[in-house]
């Protein structure tokens, strides 16, 4: 039984599998099932039943999302499927691995997803800096076209699908799914108001589904080996496997496919090799830059959506960023604030004008000019830019490490003020 459906073909010591090899390893089975008469509604049902949740950050159930697409006679004919391959969340390096390690897995999944919603056009919205991913995916796409898995009337199903590679001109906000749509349309990538959701009015006003690369890579396995198999993969409450990563000062940072529900400690100690010599874990961000800090005391929680939420954070991308005891938490949060401030699209007020202020305050802390007055302003901004207050989730994402950092590492902020310098700098 396959236990690592996402990475089973990945081996960076060789070239990624070409179409034939991929197929030989059990790829494109879903497409062949479709060719044998699997209906779009059947695909949707299976995905719903699998319990697959989006791996792009929000963890929204994928089947449910698809089910909002208006189908049938009265619905708009043109629909679009978009893969969000804009990976730019600080500390996140999982989608790159999938695309460069097994490109056909993504294409395989895209065909399944597009078929389910009857989209005849799909775009890969790829981060512009991912030049290797682009090259590798383009090659795989050409193979798929040549093999007749893409194009008109695929395998005589009457289903047409074109997959178009779009390389982004670069902005973190493009990862937000509605901003992504604006970017694809060649506009300034400001997010859009929801409702209406993209499922109803998305790309060029047509029903559109946006899914993360990793989410899509789950689909071929689900269609090939079934719901029961998929559900059996997990160790916890959520189904399937997931890519988990570690960056920061672990002994062996990296990215691994593990069952959901794997204990965090196992990830850190078994896979990450524990902290480097002489360093203690002080805290970690569990799923990229826009998640709340967790503490060493949380290490025995499991990598499950609910467990992590219980500790006040989010599983999100599942890539841990480690903060060690020799690294300044104020500096680390400040680095994130610079990032968020620069990547704000400039559309709504709290984010556009709140983040730069926050960022400036961190600069002052770094220079040894931090004050309690500024600390209070930081605190206010956590609430001010929080969920529901801003136009999209970028600024609330920024408040996650900020708010939890202020809570957990208060002492470090205080020391910056009293010592009028960064206590971690020698």
């Amino acid at each position, binding site marked *: 039984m396959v236990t690592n459906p996402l990475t089973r073909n990945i081996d960076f010591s060789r070239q990624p599998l070409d179409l034939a090899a991929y197929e030989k390893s059990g790829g494109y089975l879903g497409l062949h099932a479709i060719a044998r008469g699997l209906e779009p509604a059947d695909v949707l049902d299976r995905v719903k039943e699998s319990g697959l949740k989006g791996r792009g950050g929000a963890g929204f159930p994928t089947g449910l999302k698809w089910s909002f697409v208006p189908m049938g006679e009265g619905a708009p004919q043109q629909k679009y499927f978009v893969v969000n391959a804009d990976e730019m969340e600080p500390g996140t390096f999982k989608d790159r691995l999938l695309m460069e390690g097994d490109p056909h897995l993504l294409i395989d999944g895209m065909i399944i997803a597009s078929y389910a919603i009857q989209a005849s056009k799909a775009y890969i919205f790829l981060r512009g800096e991912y030049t290797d991913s682009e090259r590798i995916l383009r090659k795989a796409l050409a193979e798929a076209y040549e093999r007749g898995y893409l194009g008109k009337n695929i395998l005589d199903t009457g289903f047409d699908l074109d997959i178009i590679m779009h390389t982004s001109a670069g*902005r973190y906000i493009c990862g937000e799914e509605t901003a992504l749509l604006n970017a694809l349309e060649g506009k*300034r990538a400001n997010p*859009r*108001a929801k*409702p*209406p959701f993209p499922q*109803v*009015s998305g790309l*060029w*006003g047509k029903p559109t589904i946006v899914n993360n690369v990793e989410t899509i890579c789950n689909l071929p396995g689900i269609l090939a080996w079934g719901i029961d198999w998929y559900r059996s993969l997990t160790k916890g409450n959520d189904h399937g496997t997931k890519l988990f990563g570690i960056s920061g000062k672990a002994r062996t940072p990296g990215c691994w496919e593990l069952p959901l529900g794997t204990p965090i400690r196992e990830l850190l100690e078994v896979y990450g090799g524990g902290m480097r010599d002489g360093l203690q874990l002080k805290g970690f961000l569990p799923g990229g830059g826009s998640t709340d800090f967790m503490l060493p005391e949380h290490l025995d929680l499991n990598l499950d959506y609910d467990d992590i939420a219980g500790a006040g954070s989010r599983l999100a991308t599942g890539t841990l960023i480690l903060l060690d005891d020799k690294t300044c938490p104020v500096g680390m949060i400040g680095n994130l604030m610079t990032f968020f*401030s*620069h*990547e*704000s*699209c*400039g*559309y*709504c*007020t*709290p984010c*556009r*004008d*709140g*983040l*730069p*202020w926050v960022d*400036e*305050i961190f600069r*002052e802390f770094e220079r040894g000019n931090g004050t309690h*007055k500024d600390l209070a*302003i930081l605190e*206010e901004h956590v609430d*001010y830019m929080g969920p*529901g*207050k*801003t*136009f999209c989730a970028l600024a609330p994402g920024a408040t996650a490490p900020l708010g939890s950092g202020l809570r957990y590492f208060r002492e470090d902020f205080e020391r910056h003020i009293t010592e009028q310098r960064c206590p971690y700098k020698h």
Partner: protein
Amino acid sequence: MTDNAKVQITIDGVTYEVNAGSNLLQECLSLGLDLPYFCWHPCMGSVGACRQCAVKQYRNDEDNAGIMTMACMTPVQPGARISIEDPQAKAFRAGVIESLMISHPHDCPVCEEGGECHLQDMTLMSGHNYRRYDKKKVTHRNQYLGPFINHEMNRCITCYRCVRFYNEYAGGEDLSAQASHHFTYFGRHREGTLESEFSGNLVEVCPTGVFTDKVFSESYTRKWDLQTAPSVCAGCGVGCNIAPGERYGELRRVVNRYHDELNGYFICDRGRFGTGYVNDAERLKTPLDGAGNELDADAAGQQLREIAGSAGGTIGSARGTIGIGSPRAGNEANFALRKLVGEENFHTGYSDSEHACMQLIAEAAGDPQFHNPSIREIEQADAVLVLGEDVTNTAPRIALALRQSVRNKALELADGANIPRWQDAAVRELAQQERSPLCILSSGATRLDDVASDRVIDTPSALARNAFELAHRIDSDAPSAEGGSSAEDDIDPLARIADHLLAASRPLIVAGASSGDVDLIKAAINIAGALRKRRGNGASAPVDLCLLTTEVNSMGLHLMTRPKNSLGEALRKLSAGEAANVIVLENDLYRRAPHAQVDAALAAAKASVALDLLPNRTTAKADLVLPVTAFSEQQTSYVNYEGRAQLAYQVHRNHSAARPAWQWTGDFEHFRQALLEGADSIPVFAKLRDVLPDTSSLPGGIKVPRQSERYSGRTAMKANLNVHEPKQAQDPESALAFSMEGVPPLRDATILASTWAPQWNSNQSISKFQDEINGPLRQGHGGTLLLEKRTESGGFFPPPVNGDGAGLELLPAHQIFGSEELSSRSEAIRKRMTGAFVAVAPADAVKHGLKQGQGVRLSVAGDAGGVSVTALTCIRTQTSPGAVALHVGDREIDFHGLGARVELTPAETPHGRGLGELIVSDLAREQGDV
């Protein structure tokens, strides 16, 4: 949404009835509640960018926590419970202002917006008052944006209203949001004049002082030091409502005055920037005799009376004195002259071709088959045909409305997708390029082509034949035009247009008098008539037929003049000696008729009198010149294209010997009598009396102040002369006072002189005067529609006979900046004017050896000795071959002398202005297209 259903919601414990389908912000404002906002605009809807309008919304009665929501983005739900006063909501709103202020310069003392700044108002309302931000501010470089608009980007609060208005609402293309995060910038891609004809609205749309009125800032005054009165723009035949402001005897600026059926919140740049002539040093100040000697007013009045009476002995006798009226003067001035010379001697003052058009336009206005739509109704059209008018240049505000009409398709799609119409960005995204049809038949490019669904470009004569044929296609009873559609495309454009119009639920036909082409108007009537027939009589509403008049009072003038009393007839009578004298009211006849005819008539006249406000070629030839007041210096009524009579109040006094023309020519003591003269003696004007305000609510002689409650420095104004508080001038003519005393409009006054409400110093205070957002003003008064419908409908007109000839067909090319006589004498407008030019097709340019920007001579076809005119060549790719469009407006050009067909020859390039300020999309490049 179209339904008017009401639902109940609770706001801070009080239950209200509000409109279902609307959003919370709009409904709170309709209820008169103070909820701050920036990015929302009453007619541009919601986008949720600024986050200023946050309120708490509770799920149910038990929910005490509630969630923060942006009122402008939240649909009204029956039974909803919300709170504006919730401490968290208030704190958040104060936070938003604090954010917006972190880089704002706090330069209110030197900012033109100060005192009427929405940002100031909202800052106070939100309770933010101390700047804690002590870091570096973001600063920007400003751009030169042309003669109308200043740019001060540091004041920007990034609400995106400017680009939403300029690009999305008005179709401008040269302003955009640039860069991002807190460096977001609003400007052109490089410095230069803003191209949109509606750029001035940026001044009012921007909630702070980024875009300010450059003309105003040259002689700047705070809003509270302006003397303001309700007025009507005299720029074209639309009659937009404006609020001009004066100080020290100078007209300082014009801003939009809300009218729910007409201009709404926006006016065009001609209207806003085209009143500088009022302050012109050349203004006529004293009566002059033929030699230019100044006369005293009594003597001049006496002379006028003698001239009027001399010829026939008695005033008003048939063989006496000819009166030539004016479409740019108000009704009262025309009434008075008409009374003075007698109805049979009173003539219209516009050109003969326009005279003929006006007969048809007014005829159609009385036809029960048709409805003459207001601007609000124009915006509701779901298929439009524009016939021969370059609406942006002849009735600009209507062009802006037509641009909105094409959005009806989008709104319909939004309804279908359950997206509220006020969700502006979402509706635009859903609809993409889907638009309601806008079909334009013309002889050249128009400024609405970018949203047109169907374009047919042809010579004027072919255009008319096509239009007649179109009517025939719609209903076969309408006569066919032989030689109609010449198009041999695979899709016959006329068939498509006919389909669009027939499929529409509210089709609209637009034509007008600006082309002076009666055949086009007849064709428009035929098309509307054919549509009416096909839609079934009785059952459905009349078909919208909008026939545009060219000047502020063309319609009023027409209605009081006998059909045969054209200008040509007046000139003929004078030349033939059938009349001895002539009195010309506010009119430069050289703009209206062939120069030779005017010369001959004036030479033949025993005595000629000209009443006007600026010298022109007609005043130069007159034996007696009487100075008259400008639109803002007098009270008067005008009749617009719809037949809507509106009263324009006097804003300020003219201290010279100039008077309203009716005072020179009439024997009335008061304005009221001058108005009633027409209302009592001319049946169609009977309802004119209704434009007079109902002052019954104003107790005993109390008036409405023209000056605001905060009018400052009144005693200091003439301190160099006299430190005493002078007695304020009295206004015996209207319900307004030239002072700050009286009943301010907020408290029950009938007249809305300028909008102001406590905490609302900016123009956004208008919501305090509306019934509900976008509803009628509580103060009234939207004017009075004069025209009654007849009982019987007219029939179809026969098509014109094919009159081929030598040469090219001549038509007028109107320009928003330059074609209107008075505005073109305003400093700001002059900066945007071009030299006289002739638009020709590339093929014709080649044929006649013409070069872009160089001289061309037009002469009467086949008449070597005839009139000729020199102008600049303007090669435009969209001009119909065989047609040439001559810019009208240049004072020296004898447009009417040229006739219908002309010949072109290369000529010396005339001196003066080039084509520099011409904004067109189809100018041929020197090599490429020619």
